[in-house]
């Protein structure tokens, strides 16, 4: 079986700064892959390259057999890759339902069926009771969840989640993990960036570690958490001792 997403020697330079260096990575259909690494490791930049928000300076990005590297963001989305933003970008004066409808209109031309699809997505994200609330009056946590709903409404095959759990209280994390698992069980492959290690270890089938723009490790959560290089670069000795 060929990978759903294939990154080959992807490089991204901003002038003299090399944010992503020679990253080669496969994501198989149905996987949940966690992307971790210290701040400034290039995780969000890599996301933006995949989603068409940054041009790559070298390499290739193939999704479902099609080159999507350096294609505009809307084309990447239409091809089946949806993303959320680490810094939320709400449609402030739209309600939650309307925001999600913007996403569902991609596969549903008429308003009635886009609305049904959007309500369905809101229910899956457990926020259907917030349908008529304007996006600007939601809490940051709910704004992040609305980002997921919007992205999911485009009916992607690959979902890129950029720190959607940041800011959640420990009690709220398991609920969102359940939601993500359910999305994955529905046939959506998930690639996510996260700093909450407990969440990453809990949900990821595979963990990829970026450090200084380079791929440092790639393996199961257990393998990666034992990797001495990863411990030195990111997890720290304390985590290794505790694990």
């Amino acid at each position: 079986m060929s990978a759903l997403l294939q990154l080959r020697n992807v490089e991204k330079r901003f002038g003299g700064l090399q944010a992503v260096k020679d990253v080669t990575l496969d994501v198989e259909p149905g996987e949940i892959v966690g992307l971790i690494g210290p701040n400034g490791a290039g995780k969000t930049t890599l996301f933006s390259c995949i989603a068409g928000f940054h041009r790559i300076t070298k390499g290739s990005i193939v999704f479902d057999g099609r080159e999507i590297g350096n294609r505009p963001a809307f084309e990447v989305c239409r091809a089946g890759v949806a993303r959320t933003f680490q810094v939320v970008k709400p449609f402030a004066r739209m309600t939650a339902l309307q925001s999600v409808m913007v996403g569902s209109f991609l596969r549903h031309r008429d308003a009635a069926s886009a609305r049904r699809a959007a309500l369905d997505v809101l229910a899956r994200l457990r926020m259907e009771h917030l349908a008529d609330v304007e996006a600007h009056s939601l809490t940051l946590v709910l704004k992040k969840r609305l980002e997921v709903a919007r992205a999911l409404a485009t009916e992607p095959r690959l979902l890129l989640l950029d720190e959607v759990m940041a800011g959640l209280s420990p009690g709220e994390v398991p609920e969102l993990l359940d939601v993500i698992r359910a999305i994955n069980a529905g046939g959506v492959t998930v690639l996510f960036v996260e700093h909450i290690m407990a969440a990453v270890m809990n949900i990821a089938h595979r963990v990829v570690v970026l450090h200084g723009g380079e791929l440092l490790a790639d393996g199961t959560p257990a393998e990666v958490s034992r990797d001495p290089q990863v411990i030195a670069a990111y997890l720290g000795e304390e985590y290794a001792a505790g694990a």
Partner: protein
Amino acid sequence: MRIAKYLLLAIAIVAALAGPLITQNSFLRDLWVLVAMWGAVATAWNLIGGYAGGLSLGHAAFFGIGAYTSSLLYLDLHLSPWLGAIAGGLVAVLSALVIGFITIRLRGPFFALATLAFAAILGIAATNLSALTHGAEGMTIPFAPALRNAIFSSKVDYYYVALALLLIYVALTWWISVSRFGYYLIAIRENEDAAQALGIDALRVKLGATLLSAFMTALVGSFYAQYRLFFEPSIFATDISVQIALFAIIGGLGTVWGPLIGAAILVPLTGELQSFLGSALPGIDAFVYGALLVLAILFVPNGFVSLIRPLFAGKRTPPATRQPVEAEAEAKT
């Protein structure tokens, strides 16, 4: 609330249909025509300026293109202005395509400045290409009332033409506001990056809105030419572009009825101020007008449409704010 809503609607319909018939006063009848006409232009502007969030300060360009195209075709080739208006709309679409291609990538104030410059360039061109446009002396259309000429002896006839345009534009805006295109325009206005991430080709959608808006504006420009039977290159002037934008802003940006409400308030206001105050002290009417605009923007920032909207807001859920996540479970019933 229900009754108030239908009562208001009924009054509005009767007023719109019978309005200019209750008076013989030519000045008042002119006001009715102008409200419908500027209401239509502001409604057209609202598609790009209100829904898509692209503050155009150059809509006089499309208005003038419509006026010049239909008038030139009428005077030089004897083409009926009804058809000339369509031709004017198409010329406006072509020019919007060219200017849109250049400016649509520009965000915020840069887009506004580019559209401002576009209208200014056309004004200069109209003044200097006198072989074609009669230059600064302007275009005079001989008074020859006939349906084919789109010239009428009664202002009431003009009013119904303007009203028809206005109603079509308002209906079109309503239809857009509940369809995919409208959602896309608002999404682009609220956050262009997020819109792109949801599969929206933002440049194309914005360009589409600009072309449609240009076409609609040019039709009204042709109407204006046939109504006034005289215009000059000042039709491209910045103050006309600004007026168009102001009608929509004061009435309510990105709303179906806002631009019409804005025109219905501001058009008579300018006329009245001029006739009551104009002779007292030169320029005082413009000063009072400006002061009133400032007050309106300070105290009714969402436009006058926001004052009557509660009447129409049927079964809206109360504006919930900052609901804690914990409350979600109980709220699911």
